[in-house]
């Protein structure tokens, strides 16, 4: 036992003697033989997905005698720490769900298998979704389900006003909502997760978070996106004095007239709003900015860890999860949107017009950059965005400060 303590001690001390390797090329995927796959596949999945996947996977087990799927559900709060620790201790499961903004970080550890091209057809997925798993030229895991953001509003408060199609129209539209009783205007999150509000606007202004391996957070496009986002706070069309957790009840009560969010809000709104509320709101695609209407794609991927004896069975399970029919069925089970385009033709998804809006939006959606330091940069951005939303600094300063700090953090390459 003592040996290990000494080993760790050595880690601390010997760190002085070692340095980074200059990174190798893109990783080669190992071929997979799913035909004879068997054994037990252990899977980690978070939250609702984790709760529901175990029962859902029974169909796979029935179709593939000899393969058992064991799902462990974990809470989102601990997932990142738990997966990192498991990688450090070489105690990972065979397969894990990974939030797609974590992909860059997790792949960089070297613990995740590259995706065998012969097994998975990348053209079956939304390009934005597939992009979340492509790191330094190689693809890892598969996009399991996706989310994207769109514009929700109260139809009863909009009265005859049409959904805004451009940035310019949003301002007038929110004013109308406010005149009709939505005293708090549009909900714009400026706290944890606020980068997700700004990311689509940045894309719509024609900008991006990085180019050629460098952060590009201080650009005219970023300033333009920030100005647009900030104008709602300035004009008191979005407020900053509501406590965390007041939304979404404020939308149900009609004090907030609109917000930008993901598809999960449809069910969540219907539950919270009670009977008849579903007729009081609808979803529209993102209003277009100067460079188009690109939204942000989120969601989770499924990855296979390296050096697992049952990797064939693990990959077989992943390919099953991306079957269009299975994807559509998973949508009805867990309200998670299919990452596979063909699944959107299934009746389960064509039934609700509002869900279809997300389907359309997904065709024009881009992921956050899959770099290992993304989470760290996102935290920095959130701090600066909050100061900006509270009127403590202007858009140019915000962009400049985000850039400075991001440069210091680097891209982890």
């Amino acid at each position, binding site marked *: 036992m003592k040996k*290990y303590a000494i080993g760790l001690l050595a880690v601390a001390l010997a760190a002085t003697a070692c340095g980074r390797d200059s990174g190798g090329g893109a990783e080669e995927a190992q071929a997979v033989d799913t035909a004879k796959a068997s054994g037990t596949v252990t899977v980690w999945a978070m939250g*609702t997905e984790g*709760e529901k996947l175990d029962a859902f996977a029974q169909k796979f087990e029935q179709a593939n005698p000899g393969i058992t799927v*064991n799902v*462990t559900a*974990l809470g989102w709060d*601990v997932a990142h*720490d738990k997966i990192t620790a498991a990688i450090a*201790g070489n105690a990972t499961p065979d397969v894990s769900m990974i939030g797609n903004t974590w992909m860059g970080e997790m792949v960089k550890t070297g613990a995740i298998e590259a995706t065998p091209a012969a097994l998975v057809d990348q053209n079956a997925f939304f390009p934005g979704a597939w992009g979340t798993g492509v790191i330094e030229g190689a693809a890892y895991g598969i996009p399991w389900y996706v989310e994207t953001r769109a514009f929700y509003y109260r139809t009863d408060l909009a009265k005859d006003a049409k959904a805004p199609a451009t940035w310019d129209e949003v301002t007038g539209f929110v004013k109308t909502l406010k005149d009709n009783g939505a005293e708090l205007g549009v909900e714009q999150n400026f706290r944890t997760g606020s980068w997700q509000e700004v990311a689509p606007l940045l894309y719509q202004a024609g900008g991006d978070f990085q180019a050629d391996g460098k952060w590009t957070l201080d650009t005219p496009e970023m300033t333009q996106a920030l100005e647009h986002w900030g104008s709602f706070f300035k004009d008191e069309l979005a407020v900053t004095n509501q406590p965390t957790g007041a939304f979404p009840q404020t939308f149900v009560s009609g004090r907030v007239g609109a917000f930008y969010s*993901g598809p999960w809000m449809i069910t969540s709104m219907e539950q919270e709003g009670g009977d008849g509320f579903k007729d009081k709101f609808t979803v529209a695609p993102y209003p277009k900015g100067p460079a188009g209407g690109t939204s942000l794609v989120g969601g989770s991927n499924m990855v296979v860890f390296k050096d697992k004896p049952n990797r064939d069975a693990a990959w077989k399970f992943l390919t099953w999860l991306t079957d269009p029919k299975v994807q559509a069925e998973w949508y009805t089970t867990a309200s998670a949107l299919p990452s596979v385009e063909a699944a959107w033709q299934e009746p389960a998804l064509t039934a609700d017009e509002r869900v279809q809006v997300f389907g359309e939006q997904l065709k024009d959606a881009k992921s956050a950059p899959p770099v290992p330091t993304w989470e760290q940069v996102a935290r920095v951005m959130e701090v600066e965005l909050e100061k900006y939303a509270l009127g403590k600094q202007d858009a140019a300063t915000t962009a400049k400060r985000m850039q400075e700090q991001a440069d210091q953090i680097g891209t982890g390459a």
Partner: protein
Amino acid sequence: MKRRVSTYVLLTAGLLVVIFPFAWTMLASFKPESEIRQNPPALLPADWTTSNYSGLFERMNMGTAFLNSAIIAIALVVANLLLCSMVGYAFAKLRFRFRNTLFGLVMVQMMVPAIVVMVPQFVLIAKMGLVNTFLGIVLPFVVAPLGIFMMRQFISDIPDELIQAARVDGAKEFRIFFSIVLPLCRPALATLGLITFMTSWNNFLWPAVVAQSEDMYTLPVALAIFSNAQATQYGLLIAGAVVVVAPILLLFLFLQRYFVQGIASTGLK
């Protein structure tokens, strides 16, 4: 007499203020989800329901989680009561080289931010093959610095004469410890036991990282599944919080008579 009445009035007023959030939580656990999230919120449930509790038991294996929490907490209580008082005794009443240095290490351990050591500790546990075992969850905490500190403080107050008399009688150090010191420590042990139980019962991060299958989950770890960035299910969480706190409340109720006894009645005086 008047003084006593005013004390009661003060204590009661204080109690109302102190337990209000707790009372609200109890009441909220009987509200449907929509009412909990309702803004403005209300005190009393408009529509009483036990669906949060039944939901809790339907959606997760509460029995297993409860049992796991209990096994881990009891193991830690037993280990800490014995080991902390042993170590505390050495620091209080025995003389040896490096005593102060060692006690410094106890304090150091108490001050380590848990998050810093978590990943290296997990690597150790993994190397020992203890991932997903009770032993792995328990081992780093079997002799907690707080317990050593407490026991040292309490044992320091035991008159040296008692121990000296036993030494003159020729009693071996272990016999002195077990037959003289330990019985005198009962009130301190009760306090330590309760604190250890509670800390273990509410501990989240470490068991969440070490337990890798749901049949090893403790209550807080299992409940965390319902906490979701997008749609936290408050009803389940609140009902869960009530279920989690109930055993500790009972334990405290049961153990508090040891506090009442006090040190004076243990034969010290």
